[in-house]
């Protein structure tokens, strides 16, 4: 176990108590991080009264399908899930494509006003979404896009974070010589981008895709503003509707829905967590 450390004779070694303290804090933190997921499942699988059981109920029950049946009675749960899946996928495909293109241009081309334009892109990250929400709503109304998925998809089709993060990756991962060689061989600009750059940067694109998918999937404010009819609700709005129900709060029902809605994202995250976390941190550096 610690023989390696003993050999090194680290003068800063905290000793056994320090180590125990370290791990205690970390384990406690990790437990706090995952407990709500477990609690969601516990409440979702128990009967109505389980939430406020004293002492708190911590074991998984067998009422999940009963609870979930009530969700299906109250909302078009799977419709909402499908809507979210559709909107998030469309946005993600588009964001990955356009941000990669723009990031590639900023990383590998020389053109007038390049730096100014790039700083402008970065600056837009700091403008609160709420500042433009009313006119955007008005634009949507003029376009007759209220209560349609277009209102969710079109404005989100490309974003500053994605451009920034793709540029960072492309400037180191794609070698300029390769691009130049491709040009000398007479390849068109888009062809070179597609055949030379894209294969090298797929990991970065995948990370951006997952991060973006999560953001869109979890968005609440804008869908709340533009969606009106239940058949168009995304899953977040549908979940919130379950909660604002006036005739007594049925937590078993709410949590079975919340858990089912969280599960797909949780699985995707656990499968790709290494990418997601690596992507996030490299996006944050050099700010």
């Amino acid at each position, binding site marked *: 176990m610690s023989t390696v450390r003993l050999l090194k004779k680290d003068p800063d070694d905290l000793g056994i108590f320090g180590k125990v303290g370290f791990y205690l804090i970390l384990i406690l*933190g990790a437990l706090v991080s995952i407990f709500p997921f477990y609690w969601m499942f516990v409440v979702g699988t128990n009967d109505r009264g389980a939430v406020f059981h004293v002492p708190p109920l911590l074991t998984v029950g067998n009422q999940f399908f009963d609870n979930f049946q009530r969700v299906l009675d109250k909302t078009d749960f799977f419709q909402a899930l499908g809507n979210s899946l559709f909107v998030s996928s469309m946005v993600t495909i588009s964001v990955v494509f356009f941000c990669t293109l*723009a990031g590639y241009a900023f990383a590998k081309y020389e053109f007038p006003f390049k730096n100014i334009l790039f700083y402008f892109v970065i600056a837009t990250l700091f403008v609160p979404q709420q500042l433009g929400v009313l006119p955007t709503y008005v634009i949507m109304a003029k376009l007759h896009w209220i209560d349609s998925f277009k209102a969710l998809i079109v404005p989100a089709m490309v974003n500053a974070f994605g451009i920034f993060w793709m540029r960072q990756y492309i400037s180191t991962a794609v070698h300029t010589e390769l691009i130049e060689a491709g040009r000398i061989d007479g390849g068109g600009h888009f062809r070179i981008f597609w055949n030379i750059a894209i294969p090298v940067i797929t990991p970065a694109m995948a990370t951006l895709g997952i991060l973006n998918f999560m953001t869109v*999937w979890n968005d609440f404010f804008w869908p709340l503003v533009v969606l009106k009819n239940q058949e168009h609700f995304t899953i977040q709005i549908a979940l919130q509707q379950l909660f604002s129900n006036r005739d007594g709060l049925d937590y078993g029902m709410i949590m079975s829905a919340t858990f089912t*809605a*969280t599960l797909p994202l949780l699985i995707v995250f656990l499968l790709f967590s*290494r990418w997601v976390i690596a992507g996030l941190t490299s996006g944050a*550096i050099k700010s």
Partner: protein
Amino acid sequence: MAQPVISSPHAESKRPFLTEQRRSRITAYTFISPFFILFSIFGLYPIFFTIYLSFFKWDALNPMKFVGMKNYDLVTSDPTFWISFSNTLIMGLLGTVPQILLALLIAVLLNSGMTRFKKTFRVLFFMPNITSIVAVTLVFSTLFGNNGMINWLLSGLGLDSVAFNSGWWGVKIAISTMVMWRWTGYNAIIFLSGLQSIPTDLYEAARIDGANRRQQLTFITLPLLKPFIVFVTLLSTIGALQLFTEPYVFLGQSGTGSTRQEGITMVTYLYSEAFRNGFFGTAAATAVLLFVVTIIFSVLNMLVSSRMGGDTGGGKA
């Protein structure tokens, strides 16, 4: 750097119009244009229109009527606005300051050489961030209920139970806790990547000079981590000023809506002015005020943090 070749009229006549350089410039502009087109329509134009709109009375149906500064007067003389303002600041402080300190602690612990299962911990700490805020809020509203687990724990410790869903402080503490739960791990991972970018030979040199763990922390780690701290604090501040979903969902449970005074935030105020009351003019004025407050706090943030590291600073990010 490829300096553009200044083409004299002579050269011009010999070459085709689309030189290699022109062609690649056009390509580059085409590649970046989707962002600028979409941002002009759905970002830039709305921002200027919001500012313009803030001087008009408008309900989105009837013609707009110029009212000058009246919207700003209306908003700033509305006690609810000031409650939303102070709520936003209080929850911002409660949610951000402990969160950043905790994130720093976790990052330092995870970065210390002896931590095993580093990758597992990273994933576990990051998990809260992938959940939707709606889901988080729903879960926490059961934990913070009157007979919920937190109050059960408090009574187990011999403390009085707190009205987390209706008390002035209770609501704020509950909402700040949700924010903290969601973002602490995320920030810890950003700090961790900052810590890992610090070259290890700096620590070795310090150790040879006899610096202890605490001196290493104050003279190497913190100054070199400064850019990351600035980044995280800035983003957290901006995020805190835009707090909306947590109070909206958490306080919306009784069906009375989200404008309850204990937890109303500036964005909730804006939302209800525009989409509940139909006062687009005052909502626009609120948005402009929110933007001004955001700028003020971002600048303050920068000023404070640029003093923080003193002359030991000079991060390399």
